[in-house]
């Protein structure tokens, strides 16, 4: 039961993108120390977060019809960069290209 709940946390976190990756990693590491009731409780909060972000995206898409397209385009470009960086085995040391891209996201 406990294991199932813990697995659930991992999956829920994967669906959340309004938390920074470092925060998500921290949640995951520390969730292992929670008692079953705590895990259950955490899962409920995370479900709320997912529902909230779904609403947010819907709202953004309604307000700005180009929003989704922009996200996808940035996603695709980021992925391309990452793949080439990976190919050049630079991912571990050089994240400048990705950082530049993410900076651009801010100005979308």
């Amino acid at each position, binding site marked *: 039961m406990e294991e199932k709940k813990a697995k659930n946390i991992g999956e829920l976190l994967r669906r959340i993108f309004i938390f*920074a990756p470092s925060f998500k990693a921290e949640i995951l590491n520390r969730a*292992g120390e929670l008692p079953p009731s705590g895990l259950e*409780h955490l899962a*409920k*909060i995370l479900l709320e977060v997912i529902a909230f972000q779904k609403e*947010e995206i819907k709202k953004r898409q309604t307000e700005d019809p180009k929003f989704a397209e922009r*996200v996808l*385009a940035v*996603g695709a470009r980021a992925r391309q960069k990452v793949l080439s960086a990976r190919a050049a085995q630079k991912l*571990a040391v050089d994240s400048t290209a990705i950082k530049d891209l993410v900076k651009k996201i801010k100005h979308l």
Partner: protein
Amino acid sequence: MTNNKAAAILPEKEIYPQSPEIAPQGREIEISEADVENAVDRLMIDGLDEGAAVVELVSPDKKKTREYQRRVETELVDSATLERTRGALARAEFINKLAGGEMAELTDRESANIASSLESRSWQKIFSELRQGDTAIYFSMPAGIFSVKYFNDELFGQQLTDEIIDHRKNYMASLAEHHGLEILHQDFRSGILKPNQEKIKELGGPDKTADIMNALGRQLDQAMVKVILETIKTKETELKNSSLAPAAKEAKLKKLDSFKNKLGQWGFKATFGASKVGASPKSGDYTPAALAVAESQQMAQVLRHGEQKKYGGEYDAKFIKAEIGNIIASGKELAGVIKDKNGLPFEVWQTVDGRRTINRDLVRAIRKNKFEPAPGQEEAVKKVEQYIRRVNLLDLFKPLTADEIAGKNSLPGSADDTLKNKVDKTRRLIDLAKMKDLNQADRQAVAAILKVDQKDATCASPEIFHSEAMKMPDAVYVSIDVMDLGVDLLLEYERLLNDIDAGKISLAEASLKAGDSTTKRMREVRAKVAEVCGRYYSKDKIFTLVGGDEVTVALPNGEDINDLLLELQKATNSRVVKTAVGSAERADGESGREDGASLPLPEGEKKRGREDQRLREHLGAIKRAEQGAEVSKAIETARRQAELSLSHRFKSEGMSSEMAAGAARKFLSDIVPDSFVVKEEADGGFVILDDAGFERTREEILQELAEQIASTPQEKT
């Protein structure tokens, strides 16, 4: 060991699948929510901080995002802290019952707990048990990569490090018993033992102090290497299953591996020192006991950093004096200037009050491993590091000043109470508790001792602090972090070593006085905190928790405490951070925040115990002060770096060192205020409040700083 189930079964995440391209630009496609989620997911590149940019992109409602983060953080308060605080609350209830005369009968266990609580208070056992002719054995855990700090921050995290410390304490307790030693004091990094000659004879083991110390050291070494190897395995599994980016994971695993090699090579070398207690000149003067502890600590300290292979050594004044001479000589050989990786020069020596002393900026950076040398400067920096480590020779934490230990001054917070009175009173209560013979008046006396902090009787004990703060409906926590205390302590040791070497003070006197000015400074800070808070709240509403270099005050939520915060900062010259228990996540769901930003509560939350939730909120708010302190540190560091770089520029333009430094300071004070406090906002973000009453975020200040530095200095030339 830690339960890693969650980490272990994280779904395998392929962030960047090798599959074909999605949504090339310009192509007309139907975009589903899932597509958006997937695309954003790909932007969440582990190990990069830019997650925040994605958060910004997708969720313009930062306030709500922060609220969710805070709720999750409250849920994640680590179980060890939660358990410890639950224990403290139970003890507080017991203390209050004792004080109120509500305990008709004490069980055997309760009596034993009273005795051990009293015995463990600020050197009580050292002052009452160490007598003339006794030997004090001090043990110290290894330093550097074997230190608790390194374990905690770099290798294992708090939970596993706490487990290592517990193992060490248990091993030490059983080894001490095995060798006929009594433990007088034991904390996370050191302890003090007293050999019991009769028991030693009975046990038939080694009877020479040096042999006992080396046997203890060897046995502890073997036992701890096993414990640490097990911990490394646990951590490796944890890391392998974690969601960290491959590069970060690899770096951490590599660090563990390199540590494992060093552990195999060096072992876990705790060091021991021993010294005999001399005769006391008069009743009530505990100087000889304190001196024996200080001397044994110095021996342990020298062995800790020395080349010697042995675990323990008996105190030898000549040897220590020679070591002091060597330390001073090694200081003279240090380079005059060292450069950091940006080419900024740091003068190794400064003149303060007419004395030559090591540069405090350098000490601060090197102590925290934050000094990155320029290429070719590594050796010079290493020498400065070694010098700083060796200057720590006198590093012994004493709860009282030399004059209080000698009975010349009364104890803080009680004008007519001397150390002797306190030790005797406590001893009597311990004996009565052990005999289960505490009457009502005695029980109240016990409660009075346990209600106050062991270092400072004007402050609450941790038990009372947590229990009273939990009772406040909307508590506000103000954390006052005294800056540079560690640096000042080191500079105090350096001054004393120079004075010993120059014959201005005896080694014994310096050993007893070392740390006194820091102890006094912290007392002054606590007194000022009480005074300032006392102007805004009645005394019975203020509860203060004493830490090493910090003080945390719990206050009832007032209308506006900006003035109080700024006054506290000015009075104590410290880093001041305010956090608060948010009421949005209340289990009872009765009150939302003032700004109406409360979130709907899920069913399960209502069912949870109200107390448990309140405890999490209370601990969460105290813990968040650390995040606030990080905000403050970022600004302080940026300002210091800017000051250095500006003054270097001004100097290269022909100004004298003093003028350049003054000009840089003046220029920067317009951008970064000299005094400011950090406040947690209702939505969980932090703002910086300066003494002019302006509130800005960290990013705003740093941005302004960067812009001004990029432009103004050139214009000044």
